[in-house]
């Protein structure tokens, strides 16, 4: 049996307090094991991004717990073990492609020359080595998102998370980005979780987890894999995507 990378137990996330509180996610319980390819699907506002950010350690749950048994405490997640590709273009505008991709390694204290070489390798992996000196503004949307994938890969992650990576791309570019993600995950053996509402993207992945109004359905009926009951105190007004 594969090792569990991230484990969510009855996780909920509420934004704000009082009457304006917004319940984005509630009672989500799931495990992501090494090597799995999961599509997190659901309509806009269903809580996909919220769950992804909790898995990435970018946000903290208001209820429940998130653990990373194969990695360690939350401080150990980044830079390195967890790679994230964001929903919108997320390259650092003043830095060129090479510097963008090398950034996670530089933040981890890697020697700049080694970091640059590793960035070149990551870019070559997804076929963008010739863009190393370009600025983000000089890339197309698809290229920029593939560079973001390279950046997520450069730290040799065990968990690759992508939040609507093709949301603003045409089909051709979207396909290239998904190819890059899947190929990278297969090569590195990392678990891959992609939040998307695009069925074409979802079809490229093995497992489909559904989110609706903040409730997660992993398609597994065992108690460990099912979502919890919605909260009774504060019904969700509008869940976030």
């Amino acid at each position: 049996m594969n090792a569990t990378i991230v484990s969510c137990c009855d996780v909920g996330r509420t934004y704000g307090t009082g009457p304006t509180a917004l319940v984005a996610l509630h009672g989500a319980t799931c495990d992501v094991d090494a090597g799995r390819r999961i599509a997190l699907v659901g309509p806009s506002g269903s809580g996909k991004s919220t769950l992804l950010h909790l898995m990435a350690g970018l946000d903290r749950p208001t209820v429940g717990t998130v653990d990373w048994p194969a990695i360690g405490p939350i401080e150990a997640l980044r830079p390195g073990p967890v790679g994230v590709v964001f929903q919108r273009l997320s390259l650092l505008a003043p830095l060129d492609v090479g510097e963008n991709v090398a950034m996670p390694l530089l933040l981890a204290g890697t020697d700049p020359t080694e970091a640059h070489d590793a960035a070149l390798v990551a870019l070559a992996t997804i076929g963008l080595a010739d863009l190393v000196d370009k600025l983000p503004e000089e890339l197309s949307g698809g290229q920029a998102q593939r560079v973001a994938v390279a950046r997520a890969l450069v730290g040799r992650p065990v968990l690759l998370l992508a939040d609507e990576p093709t949301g603003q791309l045409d089909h051709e570019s979207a396909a290239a980005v998904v190819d890059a993600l899947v190929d990278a995950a297969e090569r590195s053996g990392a678990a891959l979780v992609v939040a998307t509402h695009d069925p074409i993207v979802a079809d490229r992945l093995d497992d489909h987890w559904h989110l609706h109004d903040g409730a997660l359905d992993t398609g597994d009926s065992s108690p460990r894999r099912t979502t919890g009951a919605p909260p009774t105190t504060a019904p969700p007004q509008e869940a976030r995507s």
Partner: protein
Amino acid sequence: MTTLAWIRGLLARRTGRIASTAAGIAVGVALLATIGAFLGASKATMTQRSIARVAVDWQVEAQPGADPGTVLDAVRTQPGVTDAVPVGYGHTDAFTAAPGATTQTTGPGFLLGLPADYRATFPGVVRDLAGATNGVLVAQQTAANLRVAPGDTITTTLPGGTTSDLTVAGIIDLPTADSLFQQVGAPVGAQPQAPPDNVILVPAARWHQLYDPITATDPGAATTQVHTTLDHGLPTDPAAAYADVTGQANNLETRLAGSGLVGDNLAATLDAARSDALYAQVLFVFLGLPGAVLAAMLTAAVAAAAADRRRGDQALLRTRGATTGQLVRLALAEAATVGILGAVAGLVAAWVIVAVALPTSAAAGIGWQVAAAGIGLVTAGLVVGWPAWRDARELNVVGARRRIVRDTSPRWMRYGLDLILLGLSGLVFWSTSRTGYKLVLAPEGTPQISVDYWAFTGPALLWAGIGLLWWRLTHVGLGHGHRPLTSAATASVGSLGGTVASALTRQRRLLARGLVLVALTVTFAISTSVFNATYRQQAEVDALLTNGADVAVTESPGVVVGPDDATEIGATPGLGGVEPVQHRFAYVGSDLQDLYGVRPDTIVDATQLQDAYFQGGTARDLMARLGDQPDSVLVSAETVRDFQLHPGDQVTLRLQDGRTKQYSPVDFTYAGVALEFPTAPSDSFIVANADYIAEQTGNDAIGSFLVDTGSTDPTVVANDLRTQLGTSAQVTAIGESRRVIGSSLTAVDLGGLTRIELGFALVLAAASTGLVLGLGFVERRRFFAILSALGARGRQLSAFVWSEAILVTVGGITAGILGGWALSGMLIKVLTGVFDPAPSSIAIPTTYLAAVLAASVAAVVATVAVVVRRASHTTPTFLRDN
């Protein structure tokens, strides 16, 4: 309808963007409106002081053949005239007196006949020095020439040879002798160079006894003037008051139809005041304008920080089908909203500032308020409306979303605009310096005065050129400085050094903008504060020059004291030094001039001698020369010119000998030119070594003592000395001189303006450093959010933030100090005419500048702390939503 909905949306959901931009505009509007208020108050002060200085508003002289009674009636019935009294001006051939063993005889002089109520009506004309206050009163210099005292008899020789004996009742001074003995109706250049030396005042009845028989056969032996006071309910602006008074005088002359001419003393004084007022207007506007421009630039920076979001809004509207025209309308509506809010807030702020900061009841004229508000609206149009309009017309949806473009040199840089501006500035400065910086032009015979705004072009071009030059240097330096930046950054952040350097290099346009804003603000703060400090310094010097020292003790006529009496005066507790100064009269050829005998080694113990007072050497050099070569003499530039003197030439003066009481020749050696000297008149005078004068004349009598009060209040010392010395001397404190200096610009209390401008400069300096950095970070919130999401620790985020903060702040402040130094020097040179006397050196207000520095550094530290904290706590939703 769409526009209204858009405005409502902006106000409700873009509150920060609207409020911060409006606040920037409000600062500029408030600055201009408060300066307007201060200018109005200053002009009113100038008018009031001018009016107060005039002892006799009009001197209406009855022309030969005219009946003085008719002229008097015409003047009394002239609207605006409150009092009018006739004064007889009788010529005399000589005054003779024999108070001792010798007989003294003067040349021609004047016998004035004053009505009984004259002194009550015109209290500023006559000042009592000794003896009675009515009867036969002898002018101080006449008494000195004749060596008479109250009780002595003077024989007056009238035209035609008639003589009459007059018994001296008192000795008086005529502070306004120049105007009292003016040639009525003659232009300024044709006026007598000096008032008559020999003057005696007698009661009107006595005067008529003496002159009525003579004028019956010789009408030219005497004239009658009608001395007049006017209703002083004049406009507060000196120019308007001048026009008002001149109009009244012209009206009277028309009514007199040639029987009388008006000597308009009030208009003459207001004429000088209106020049000063124009100076003030130029000065205040010129000092305030950079502040308003800076406020506009800061506003533009604020607006630019919101540009991405605005472009995003526009792109969204365009995708929903909005036309370019609709987008432009919305942009203009936003500009109008911001402009109106800013203008209203600025005017309200100005009202509050004026009420709190200005001691007088000043209020900005409606013209200033409208102009300030108008400038606010134009600023809003330029910094908000124009970029939005440009984007709406030029950007497509993709372009609107771009956040950064590859940094190329701006077009102005390629054309060398900064160097052109600096070159032009130097050219204009050189050109205007040749004309002696006559900023306010008042051509003789032309009623209109004007300002030579051309002279201000030099500093303005320098300001703009310096700003652009800093931009170029920052841009080029960052563009080519990747390696040294990397080395510097690596030393503090290790492997991230190269990336930090890359970020700095690629954002050089943004950083250059911030650095230039900081630099220009610091330049503004320095140039404004240095100018204000120098202005205060020169105002103090002016007062010191007029009074002579903190306290001046002037001996009354007939009172003879020697230099040793300084010890008695110096016994007053708390004094810094007491210096005796001889005051005599000496003939230079046929010209009688004031002669000051000083002790060259110790004169500076009691007063200040500035280099600007002299030509031919510094103050120290020339005093040393007077000490080393006791027969040295300093004379006026006019004397040098008239007598074609060269250094080392022998100058023979005639001084009164203390033993024979006769004027005898004494040889001196011309050593230099004295333009100004403490207590000396503004026209020709002589400065020499007191010991040499005493040796040559056998008389060491002291005319006045100059007292340095040290840390003690001069008024307290003056009061003590008055008690100690009684009526034997006149004691004046420096504060009294400040009040009577008159309407000259340095006499205007700039305290309110200083508080306003320095307050604004301080706020702008702190705002520019903090705001510029803060806005720069706001513009790149996403950059820091992404860094944080990638796993950057607080220390690593700080490296990025601090690298920019240090570059912008240290670079900006350093550049600002250099620019401030250059601009201050040029400003003070250009505004030399404002200072009287011209400053020897600029004054540097170190405390204020330290406060500016501290405020800027504090603003930077606070901004960096907030930015790092916020970047470290960026939520992932920010990345998704922005």
